[in-house]
């Protein structure tokens, strides 16, 4: 197990380094001087010069990177150029929000996607399958942000059922918090549900062909046991891996969803940071997302191994 984890980490590190170098150089190439933006409307040259110096914006890029990386390794991601808040604090503030959104979206996605996938695989070729597939495809084809806008228009503006925005922390007013997150989570969840449904369906179809499913039937087991125990238990393996990948999709989706529902989460943080050329934040957030993504994949792999007896020895 340790060996396996160590090996996985060994691979993750170069990935992270590449991510950070990549983002770093991207920022350096971006037009727009952060010092000018920070200096404000007045653009006082003295201030600009000072800011350039303060944030090492004049140093050669590799040096800047080394400086940044040196601190990052020690857990210091620097400060936001815009608000001077430590990037880590910002991330600490935003992360729970996006996690709440992501978790709710995931719950919705799983609650819809998996059962729908199972049913349509089992009923392959029937109207049920056809309809489920079409709905799933529609879910994939409707732009997230458009769905969001339309929902706001319908549910909030016209019907007044749910608030259009106004994030409330879970710790403050749990019910209200969930209520405000419901629509965004739904918007985000449906697309995921569609992906999940399609993958569940195909995994199920694959496993349904397997000899051991025939064996289970030959034992005289009922269809329900055959499907839910013998088939799904195997089909779940690729879904585990997929779920980790979906996490990336989720974050990307969160960018727009948060923008539309003005949820103060990660997605909004990064978009604002990019537009404001708040480099330390961009860098920190991308790094965190990458770490998150890698961690998710890592957990998925471990889960995969745990769920898959064939792999257990390799731990």
């Amino acid at each position, binding site marked *: 197990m340790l060996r396996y984890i160590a090996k996985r980490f060994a691979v993750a590190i170069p990935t992270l380094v590449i991510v950070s170098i990549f983002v770093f150089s991207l920022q350096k190439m971006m037009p727009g001087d952060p010092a000018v933006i920070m200096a404000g409307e007045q653009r006082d040259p003295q201030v600009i010069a000072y800011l350039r110096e303060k944030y090492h914006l004049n140093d050669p890029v590799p040096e800047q990177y080394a400086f940044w990386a040196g601190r990052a390794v020690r857990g210091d991601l620097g400060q936001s150029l815009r608000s001077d808040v430590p990037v880590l604090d910002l991330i600490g503030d935003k992360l729970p929000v996006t996690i709440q959104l992501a978790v709710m979206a995931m719950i919705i996605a799983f609650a819809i996607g998996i059962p729908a996938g199972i049913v349509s695989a089992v009923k*392959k*070729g029937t109207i049920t399958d056809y309809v489920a597939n079409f709905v799933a495809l529609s879910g994939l084809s409707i732009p997230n942000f458009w769905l969001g806008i339309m929902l706001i228009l319908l549910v909030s503006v016209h019907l007044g059922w749910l608030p259009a925005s106004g994030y409330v922390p879970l710790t403050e007013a749990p019910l209200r918090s969930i209520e405000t997150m419901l629509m965004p989570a739904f918007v985000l969840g449906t697309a995921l549900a569609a992906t999940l449904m399609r993958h569940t369906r195909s995994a199920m179809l694959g496993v349904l062909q*397997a*000899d*051991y499913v*025939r*064996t*289970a*039937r*030959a*034992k*005289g*087991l*009922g*269809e329900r046991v055959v499907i839910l125990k*013998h088939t799904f*238990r*195997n089909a779940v393996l690729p879904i585990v891996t997929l779920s980790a990948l979906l996490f990336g999709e989720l974050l990307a989706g969160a960018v727009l969803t948060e923008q539309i529902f003005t949820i103060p989460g990660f997605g909004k943080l990064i978009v604002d940071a990019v537009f404001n050329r708040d480099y330390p934040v961009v860098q920190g957030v991308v790094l965190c997302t990458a770490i998150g993504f890698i961690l998710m994949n890592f957990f998925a792999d471990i889960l995969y191994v745990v*769920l*898959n*007896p*064939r792999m257990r020895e390799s731990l």
Partner: protein
Amino acid sequence: MSVETVEAGGRANGPANAGSGDGATVLRVSDLSVRFAGQPVDTIDGVSFTLSAGRTLCLVGESGCGKSVTSLATMRLLPEKAARITSGEARFEDRDMLRLSRREIERVRGDRMAMIFQEPMTSLNPVFKVGDQVAEAVARHRKVGRREARERALEMFRRVQIPAPERRLDDYPHQLSGGMRQRVMIAMALANDPKLLIADEPTTALDVTIQAQILRLMRTLQDESGAAMLLITHDLGVVADIADEVAVMYAGRIVESGPVETIFNDPQHPYTIGLMSSMPTLGAPKGRLATIPGSVPSPFEFPPGCRFATRCPFAQTRCFSEVPPFERNDDGHGWACWRTPIETIAEAGGHA
């Protein structure tokens, strides 16, 4: 076509259980026909055979001739959407398996009637312990608790001679060798003392030395339990080793059947003869092997008459257009050919 089909299969009820049998009829398949979606003809066409307690019937034939489909149809394990049973019945313990409700069939499967498959590598569910998989079969059909089911599984493991059975119960399939897995499959199949065991090429995927072990084991277990066995294979060596009766299939039809000695010593159908003579043997002198020209036709290429006609060295015009009737003599040896016995052709002089 279908009229002839009924005729072909209907005239004889497969190898008689009389004479060589030592038990009551367990399974009687008559006139079974199966058609796959999108195919022009019945892939399995009028197959009939009878199986008696304590006896082994071997179904032989080349790949793709319908052996597995026949057995799966009997177990009602064919995919319902892709495969339609167009005619026939499969009487097992006085009930027609082909017409039972799903619930009823589930009650029979794995209990009175069990099956072993070809690929021990893929026939066991990789994510469950083998012991549990066997116990599951027990628990499904007998009102027993977990512990008892596991006890039974252990007992079965012993019976199929798995070394260190207690430990093996908790192994996962991938931790076992092919031979061991096939033993587990056998244990699972026999756990509820079935009346009928269907084994679809149980040893093809195994090494010869292991194959010998498994065949021996199956024979022993059958002797103990008195179950009937339908063994599917394409290896005539295995047939000679284990069969009491043989049915030779070609392109979805049984072309010849009878007691094993008769088939080997007095093969009648040109296909049976071709099959036997094209096998290289350990003892045979070197030289060119006899061959069956061409290859098995697909359902789209089946000739309207005898399906072997396209490859048969003795075929005449009639063979291509008329389905030969399956006729049986008193020893239970039967075949479907217009041209038998082939000696007469030779005497009549030359070939077409």
